[in-house]
C-alpha cells in the first residue's frame, strides 16, 4: 500500500478534534490538526492534504471566506462541520466551494462514510460523466439521451433529463439549490428555487417508487439535494 492519505482537520474544539483524529487514524489516515483558520491555511499550504475538514465556527475567521481563498489555489475536497441551526452557513460554504457537510452532533460512522466518499471521488479519473450511468432499475445513455427503466424507455422532458443526468453523474454529492439551478437552467435562474422544487417533484414522480419517501433524490433540508444511486 502506498503512503497514507493526509487529512487536515481545522477545528477549535479540542474534544471534537480528539475523537475525529482517533477515528480517522484508526482508519489509517494521516491526520494533521489546526485550531484556527490562519494556522489551518498555513498547514494546508505546506502539507497539501488530500482532504480538508473545516469547522464553520472558527474563532478567527468565517468559514465562507476561508473556503473562497482556499479554492483560489487548491481543488482539495472540503468537508465542513457545522451546528444544526447554521443552514445558511452551510449553503454559503457549499456555494463557496465546499464539497459536503456534516451537522453536529455527528456519528463516527457517518463521518468516515463522508470522508471515504470524498477521497474516492477525488481519485476518480477526470472524466466528468460516464457515457452510461446506471442506478437501481435505471440506465441513462448519455450519448443517445435515453433513460430506460428495466429496458423500457422513460419519458422525460429536456429539463428533467438534464437535472437527472447532473445529479446521477455526481452520486452521493450534495448540491445547493443555487448550484443545481445554475447547472440545469443557467446563471439567470439561480434565484428561482421554485423551478427546482417543481422539477424535482416531477422527477420523483417518474423515478421514485414512492415519491413521498424518495430513495434516489434525497432532500437536504434547508440546503439542497443529494443523489443516492
Amino acid at each position, binding site marked *: 500500500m502506498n503512503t497514507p492519505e493526509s487529512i487536515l482537520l481545522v477545528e477549535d474544539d479540542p474534544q471534537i478534534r480528539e475523537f475525529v483524529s482517533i477515528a480517522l487514524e484508526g482508519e489509517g489516515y494521516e491526520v494533521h490538526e489546526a485550531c484556527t483558520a490562519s494556522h489551518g491555511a498555513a498547514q494546508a499550504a505546506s502539507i497539501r492534504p488530500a482532504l480538508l475538514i473545516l469547522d464553520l465556527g472558527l474563532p478567527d475567521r468565517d468559514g465562507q471566506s476561508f473556503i473562497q481563498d482556499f479554492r483560489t489555489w487548491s481543488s482539495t475536497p472540503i468537508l465542513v462541520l457545522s451546528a444544526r441551526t447554521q443552514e445558511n452557513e452551510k449553503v454559503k460554504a457549499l456555494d463557496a466551494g465546499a464539497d459536503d457537510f456534516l451537522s453536529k*452532533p455527528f456519528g463516527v460512522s457517518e463521518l468516515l462514510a463522508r470522508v471515504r466518499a470524498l477521497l474516492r471521488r477525488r481519485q476518480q479519473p477526470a472524466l466528468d460523466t460516464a457515457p452510461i450511468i446506471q442506478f437501481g432499475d435505471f440506465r441513462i445513455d448519455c450519448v443517445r439521451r435515453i433513460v430506460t427503466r428495466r429496458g423500457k424507455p422513460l419519458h*422525460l*422532458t*429536456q*429539463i428533467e433529463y438534464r437535472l437527472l443526468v447532473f445529479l446521477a453523474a455526481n452520486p452521493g454529492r450534495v448540491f445547493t439549490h443555487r448550484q443545481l439551478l445554475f447547472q440545469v437552467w443557467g446563471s439567470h435562474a439561480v434565484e428561482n428555487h421554485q423551478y427546482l422544487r*417543481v*422539477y424535482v417533484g416531477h422527477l420523483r414522480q417518474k423515478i421514485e417508487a414512492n415519491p*413521498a419517501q424518495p430513495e434516489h433524490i434525497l*432532500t437536504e*433540508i434547508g440546503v439542497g439535494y443529494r443523489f443516492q444511486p
Partner: protein
Amino acid sequence: MDKDLTGMLPLPFNPYLFVLLVSSVITLLMLPIKDPSFLPNNALLYVLLVVLTGSALGQRPAILAALISSLLYAHVFVPPHFSLAITEIHYLLSAAIMLIVALLVGHLTASLKNTARLVQAQESRTRALYELARKLAATLTRQEIEHTTCRFLQEVIPGCQIRVIEPNAGDSLTPPLPAPLRDALEQRQQTLRTENGDPAQARLLVPMLASSGLHGILVCDLPAAQAESTEHRELLETIASLAAVALERTHFADAAHQSEVRHSTEVLRNSILSALSHDLRTPLTGLMGMAETLSRGRISPERQQALLETLRTQALNINQQVTNLLDMARLRSGTVELNKAWQPAEEVIGVILQQARTQWKDRPISVSLEPGLPPLCYDAVLMERALWNLLENAIKYSPAGSPIEISVCRQDEHALISVCDRGPGLPAGLDSDTLFSMFRRGNPESNIPGVGLGLAIARTIAEAHAGDLLAENRPGGGASFSLRLSLALADCPEEELDEQP
C-alpha cells in the same frame, strides 16, 4: 358674501345694477296707478324691495335700494308727480324709515351670513378634527402619528411647513432651539413664536403636552401674516394636544408591552432552569455513571457493548432536549426569520421519515397523501422541526411497535398534516393551551426523556406560519396531532411550462 352669488350666474352679476333694474321695473309697473289712496301700498312695495335686497344681497345694495326707492317714491308718486319737491313732512319720514329699514335688514343679513359661515367653517373643522382623532386612534407608532399630524395640518393650513420633533431634539432645527426656550415651552405650556431665518415667515413652536409631560414639539413654519391669526394658533394647539395624547398612548403601550415581555422572559427563564436542573441532570448522571463503570473495566465485553450503546442513546436524547431548548429560545427571542418557499408537503415528510428510519428502525410508520394537493408555503427547516417533534412525541408516548400514521389531507382552505398514534390518547379535560404550553409534560416525573417543549415548539412554528396545532383523540384509541396550514392558493406562483421533451 355677494361673491357667492355671482359665482353661480353665467353672466357677471352686479347687485347694484340689479337693484337699479328691479326698482325701475317696479316703478314702471306702478306708474299707471294714479289713485292717491294707493300711495301707502307703493311705499310698502319699495320697503319690501329694500328688505328683500337686504336679505338676499347684503347691506350695501340694500342702502342703494333704499336711496333709489325713496328717491323714486318721492319723485314719481308723491304729489307733485315727477318732482322732488317734497312738501309734506311725512313723505320725508317714509324715505328716512326706508333708509333705516334698509340699514337694519342689511346689517342683520350680513351678520347672519357671517355667523352661518363661521358655523360652517367650525363644523367642517370639527369634522376634520374628528377625522384626525379617528386616524390618530388607529396609529401604532410615533412615526405614524407624526406623519398623520403633519399631513393633516398641511392640508388644513396651506403653505405651511410642519414637523414634529422630539422634546430634546431642539438642536436639529435651523436655527437651533435654545434650551431655555424649550423649558419655557414645557413650563408655560403655550405656543411660542420664533424666526426661521426667512423674514417673510414666522415659526410657531407648539408644545405637545399630555398628562405625563412634553411628548414633542410641533414646529410650524408659515407666512408671517398667517402666524398672527388666532384661528390658526388655536387649530395648531388643538391638534398638538390631540397628537400628544396619541403619542402618550403609544408610549404607555410600549411600556406595557416591555414589562409584559420582561415578565414572560422571567417565567421562561425560571422554567428553563427547572427543566435543566431536573430533566437534563438525570440523564447526565446516567452518562457519568456509565462512563465510570466502563473505565473501571471490570465487566464482560457483552455488558460493555450494551453500556456503550445506552451511552450513545442517552447522549442523543440529551442532544434532542438541548436542541429543543435552543429552538424554543430562538423562536421566542423573535430573531428567527422565516425562509418560506412553495414546496410540496412530501418534501419535509420524506426527510423526517429518512431520519426516523435510522433512529427507530422497528417502528411501522405509514404515510398517506391525498392526491392532487397543491404545494404549501413554508420554511422547510422549521417545518421539519415541528413535524419531527410531533413524530417523536407520538413514538415516545405510544407502546413500542404500535403503528404511527402520517397523513396530509385538505380541509376547506387548509392543509392538515397529521401524526397519529395508537397510544393512550390525550388526558381528559385538558385544553390545548395547557397541552401545548412550555415545560408541560404528560407526567412530570415520568422516565420518558424530555423537557416538555416538543409540542410548544410545534405550535410556535405553526403559528409563525399563520396556522395552528390541533390535538384530538382518534376513534378506536390513540391521539392525533395536526398542523393546520393555510393553502392560500391565490399566492401560489404559476408553474413554468416545460419545453417539449
